């Protein structure tokens, strides 16, 4: 196998694994949008706060990993419920810019809260997996990426099953479809909203742990949130399989661009290309590959 082809495979594998990790974060976004029609511009900051909780629990309180993870999950669930109750419930029915700005404001608050209560230094989030990569032929697979991809697949399948087959999941889809009819059918809409945000909290906690291990936990961790947009636009804002497909596309395209186009342009295409793709998608097929909602055309 030629060296170039080996490199290509490397890029591809890196792209697939990173793409699945993006999907994990995009999942949080999709869950909220699917259930409540709310757009979460603070997704990155959720991941950051979750990572900070887990990292601080381990380093300052010396808690063992499993305890820290449970603490992280629990606190994000509480946070999700609380957020819905205090802020988002009051914004139901308002135009989209209101919810967008509310989550942007929330993002700002979290970015200030993080360093204030958790300290500004970058904390590491050690996981019991080695740093040395698995070597399979020409491929170098870092264990953390494998873990991230695995977690991503497990939870995406889990949530997918939840929405399709479980009672609560179907109820949530009903609420997302038409709140008033759902209420008329006896579904407690507000409780399901809370549940949706709690689920985002769980997913963010997982994302925080995985990405926190990869990048180190500090305020910059919130910047992974920006990757969410190309992923969900390509895949469909309210589609869980779309999050997977979108993530894969973005991950692969980024890596291929960085590997092959960067040398000619002097770098930086990695960030640029997914957004160009996204704009094309918006023009041609705004609801994404799998999205079902109808966007009003004018």
């Amino acid at each position, binding site marked *: 196998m030629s060296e170039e082809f080996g490199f290509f495979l490397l890029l591809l594998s890196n792209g697939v694994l990173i793409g699945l990790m993006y999907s994990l974060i995009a999942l949080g976004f999709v869950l909220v949008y699917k259930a409540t029609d709310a*757009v979460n511009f603070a997704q990155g900051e959720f991941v950051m706060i979750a990572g900070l909780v887990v990292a601080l629990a381990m380093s300052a309180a010396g808690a063992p990993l499993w305890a820290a993870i449970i603490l992280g999950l629990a606190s994000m669930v509480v946070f999700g419920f609380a957020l819905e109750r205090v*802020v988002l419930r*009051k*914004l139901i029915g*308002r*135009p*989209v*810019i*209101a919810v*967008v*700005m*509310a989550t*942007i*404001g*929330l*993002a*700002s*608050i*979290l*970015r*200030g*809260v993080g*360093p*204030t209560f958790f300290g*500004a230094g970058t904390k590491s989030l050690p996981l019991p997996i080695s740093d040395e990569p698995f070597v399979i032929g020409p491929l170098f697979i870092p264990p953390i990426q494998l873990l991230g991809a695995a977690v991503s697949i497990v939870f995406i399948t889990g949530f997918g099953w939840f929405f399709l087959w479980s009672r609560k999941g179907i109820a949530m889809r009903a609420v997302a479809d038409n709140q008033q009819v759902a209420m008329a059918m006896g579904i407690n809409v507000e409780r399901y909203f809370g549940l949706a945000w709690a689920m985002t909290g769980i997913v963010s906690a997982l994302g925080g742990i995985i990405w926190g291990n990869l990048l180190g936990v500090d305020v910059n961790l919130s910047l992974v949130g920006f990757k969410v*947009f*190309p992923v969900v*636009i390509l895949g469909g*804002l309210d589609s869980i399989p779309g999050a997977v497909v979108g993530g894969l596309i973005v991950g692969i395209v980024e890596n291929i661009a960085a590997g092959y186009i960067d040398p000619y*342009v*002097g*770098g*930086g295409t990695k*960030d*640029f290309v997914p*957004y*160009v793709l*996204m*704009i094309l998608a*918006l*023009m041609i097929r*705004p609801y994404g590959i799998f999205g079902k909602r109808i*966007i*009003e*055309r*004018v």
Partner: protein
Amino acid sequence: MFHRESGVLKTTYEADMALYPLPIARWTVAALAVVFFAVIPLALHQYYLSIANLVWIAVIGALGLNILVGYTGQVSIGHGAFMSVGAYTAANLAIRLGSPWPVNLLAGGLMAALVGAVVGIPSLRIKGLYLAIATLAGQLIIEWTINHVTFISGGVQASIDVPRPRLGSYVLSSQREMYYFLLVFVVLAIVGTLNLVRSRIGRAFIAIRDQDIAAEIIGINIFRYKLLAFAISSFYAGVTGVLYTYYLGIANYEQFQIGVSIDYLAMIIIGGLGSILGSIFGAFFVTLLPIVIRYAMEAFGGLFFDPKTVLNLIPNLRLMLFGALIIFFLIVEPEGLNRLWRNIRNYFRIWPFAY
């Protein structure tokens, strides 16, 4: 008391439709003009004038964004990028061709308007959240382009020094001189916007915001007016960028990143969407907020925390307060400071009567 409309009668259409038909309103505007043109610049120290200059720059930008978001209902997170387009156009013209600042200003504004119209093209097919994300992409792509295309960015450093503006041979460089320079443009912007929203174009914008399908049916060409809204708003943004460049003496792409776009959105939300006075209030508020926080913390922070923590706390507090205020205004007073002001004004309008 402030707006005694009784006894004011007009005999011609022009008089009735004038910008300030009531004599009391005209007196108020004249008094404000005296305060802002004469009292403030002569009485205040350089440092306070420098803050005022930052506010004036923000006012122009906020007015522009409000035209697009508040009056036409198109969500845009790309304002910072349009400012940078204007700034770099002007800087490049100033350095490469040595053209005088009026030419640069106009060119910067027009270039930004062009780019704005291009970014606005998706608005013809998508609305709401999707449009917001498209403008976000536009912002990031423009940032990347300026950063990497050395023809525009003037080299590896992506920052261009511009010479100070001159009137004939007089160079404007002190804060006081800058104050007058900027104030002129602020007045032009405010008067221009006031007239724009009262005109046919303005009414078309409002129609598009409220009920765009109905607007199309009654004959408003949505295609044209949406692009026009983006173009006009970006023109304001471009002018803001150029003025900011002249104020600082340097154009640097790191000044116009996504944080700036979000700041301007915050300004118009806190100030009040769809109102000119709201844009002005919002610009004042958001620009002064970090400064006030710092003063307050320095005066009172010592009471609660030890000095080291205070230093670490001030900037984070600004972030937290900024976000909290946005959410507060969204939940409690969605029409922003403008509504608060109207409430006060209406109370005094008929005071001492209750209704």
